[in-house]
């Protein structure tokens, strides 16, 4: 592909049209369990919500505040208010151009990504396939969309692996996975999941772990009843900063990264600074306890540089440490169209955060690392740095 702006978002979110699942799943088999939008009453007001497996979602019908204007953040109450930019791939390309973004890695928007919670493996597999098919259509619509497959956790690992193979053949560039498996499934590092890691390693599909990643650690503290909704959101999101620091040590100390040394993990919307801690703390314990005598041959920081990737978008302080963290392991993300996004002024924030960063580092952070990780061939943008002219748009 030809890069126009020199900016790739390694974490954006794709919403789906309201008929996405009803047009893809068997009505005879699943009836009203198929995800669809329904009208419900909330505090005397008529609002639209997704209904999945017969259960009405308790979140707004589309998570797209970056597209909703002032006052910020606003979430649509009715489906009619949802901008087509959120769910129509060709419409959305205009938004990417407005924001100066060449390509996006696509994570789910609710109700995607948590279909395991109904405990029905058969339903989960069908709805996951529908999701992966629908998102693959985005990649066919434009090479600027890089979709991530979701996985049917409740299925046998062989079935999960086959779904991953199928999704990869349809254009998916990685998988999205929880950092802590839903109960009562075995631990993330349990051998049960080896077939999943094996197929991802073979097909060179990075495994993506997003945000709080289903971590139960700290959940009760995030949900204090005294918070207003916005306070709870701040308190919850700010602690996502340590998601990689809770998960990466598991991947290393369990021996998983030694067993799958070419498997890549990407930590999205968790910032980059958690990686400083992982590098320092894991190496400290490895040395102090002489863990090579316990079967852990590789220095943890070498494993991190070899296999772990993190995203940034606002961390002006964090980016100063890019060489300690690993200049080849950091990618930019926009989180579009969620609340943390700077759309349509992403470049303004990029310039603020990357002030004083030399061109070679900038290119790695903004698009070179992403091209390499996702195996995309692209010619460089016509001008080395496009930010200046877009800054005031």
């Amino acid at each position, binding site marked *: 592909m030809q890069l126009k702006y020199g900016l790739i978002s390694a974490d954006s979110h794709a919403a789906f049209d309201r008929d996405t699942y009803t047009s893809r799943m068997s009505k005879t088999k699943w009836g009203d369990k198929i995800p669809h939008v329904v009208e419900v009453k909330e505090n005397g007001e008529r609002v639209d919500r997704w209904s999945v497996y017969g259960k009405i979602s308790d979140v707004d019908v589309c998570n797209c505040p970056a597209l909703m204007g002032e006052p*910020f*953040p606003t979430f649509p109450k009715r489906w009619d208010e949802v901008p087509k930019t959120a769910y129509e791939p060709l419409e959305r390309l205009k938004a990417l151009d407005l924001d100066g973004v060449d390509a996006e890695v696509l994570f789910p928007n609710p109700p995607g990504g948590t279909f395991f919670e109904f405990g029905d493996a058969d339903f989960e597999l069908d709805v996951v396939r529908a999701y992966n098919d629908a998102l693959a259509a985005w990649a066919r619509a434009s090479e600027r969309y890089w979709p991530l497959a979701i996985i049917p956790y409740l299925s046998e690992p062989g079935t999960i692996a086959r779904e991953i193979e199928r999704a990869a053949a349809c254009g998916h560039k990685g998988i999205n996975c929880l*950092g*802590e498996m839903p109960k009562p499934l075995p*631990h993330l*590092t*349990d051998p049960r999941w080896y077939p999943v890691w094996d197929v991802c390693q073979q097909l060179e599909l990075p495994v993506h772990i997003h945000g709080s990643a289903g971590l*139960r*650690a*700290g959940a*009760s*503290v*995030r949900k*204090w*009843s*005294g*918070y207003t909704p*916005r*306070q709870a959101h*701040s*308190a919850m*999101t*700010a*602690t*996502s*900063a*340590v998601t990689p*620091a*809770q*998960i990466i*040590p*598991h991947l290393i*100390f*369990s021996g998983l990264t030694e067993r799958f040394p070419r498997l890549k993990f990407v930590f999205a919307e968790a*910032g*980059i*600074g*958690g990686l400083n*801690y992982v590098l*320092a*703390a*894991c190496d*400290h*314990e490895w040395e*102090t*306890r*002489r863990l090579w*005598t*316990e*079967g*852990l041959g590789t220095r943890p920081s070498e494993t991190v540089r070899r296999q772990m990737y993190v995203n940034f978008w*606002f*961390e*002006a*302080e*964090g980016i*100063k440490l890019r060489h*300690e963290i690993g200049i080849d392991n950091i990618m930019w993300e926009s989180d579009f169209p969620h*609340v*943390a996004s700077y759309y349509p002024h992403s470049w303004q924030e990029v310039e603020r955060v990357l002030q004083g960063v030399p061109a070679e580092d900038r290119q790695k952070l903004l698009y070179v690392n992403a091209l390499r990780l996702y195996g995309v061939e692209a010619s460089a943008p016509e001008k080395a740095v496009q930010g200046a002219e877009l800054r005031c748009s």
Partner: protein
Amino acid sequence: MQLKYGLISVDDHVQEPPNLWTDRLSKERWGERIPHIERTFGADRWVADGQVLLGGLVCRAAALMPNRNREPSLWDEVPPAAWRPAERLAAMDAAGIDYSVLYPTVAGLAGEAFGRLEDGELEVACVRAYNDWLIEEWAATSERFIPQCIAPVWPVDAAVDEIRRAVAMGHRGVVFPSLPMHLRKVPHISGPEYDPLWEACVALDVPVCLHAGASPELQYAPGPALGAPLAEALDAVTRPVSSVFVLSLYSFSRVLLRHPGLRLIFAESALSWGMLYMEWADHQFDHDGLAREGYDLKPSEMFRRQCFLTSWFDQIAPFAPYVGADHILWATNFPLATSTWPRPHETIERCFRGVSAEAREKILWGNAARLYRL
């Protein structure tokens, strides 16, 4: 205050001896419920009121063992420097440590163990015995030991009474489990019910020490198949950074705002995650419009007014400008497996590269001397 080595270690642990509670609690009143050591299947472990303490270990002193991946299994194997003040002083001199701020072990690395007892009266009795013992056995041996009391978690009046009594006896800080509602059914720590506790600590001018590990549920637990040495190492990495949940809660739920004189020490927190957390918390604070919800300080401003992170292995230079050299403390974590003992100064030389002499002095002893009024 006389400094010979230029290091005040703000987080070390004393090992409580087998007779601490049995000598000090009434046998008639409490009988077998008194914390004591039992030998089961050839290994010693602590039991109180039918609960096993310290994860079934008899002590935590791996830094003193020939192999740091093995703790002693019998009391007789516990190295003297873990539990004898005179031997500890010798170990401090050998390693170059001037003063040592003391935390418990059997009573919980974060002072949380007795908060799990259902009987509040037994809790108070166990806590008082520890606080008395630490003054009589450790503080009386040398002024180089800086004693800190523990406290019952509830009712708040009992906590306040014990803290007042302990500080009057010579305790210089309060080790309090950060999330007592995770220990037993007591009110949430963010509520106004605890205001008398914070007010008492402010009035007595003692810091409150929230040591990592008070709530295991803040950590992602290892898989069941992982062997003990690697599981222990993993736990040692996920524990310090779990402090972020506590810092976030005390900030966003306004405990810090309501008590501007309160000083919180995050012991065994490590440092390097702190900058990212603060940058992120401020960013989120702005995006969620919290200035309109009555906060007069951003999270990073609350931190820089009232909080301290404690490190023992992090690089300082990248973080000191943002976190603030006035808000970083240094420790050896003696005698836990993660400790930099017996050569803490080697680690210090590596970690303090590129740090000004002024900042280095603050972090290694100046801030601690101010907090503990040395």
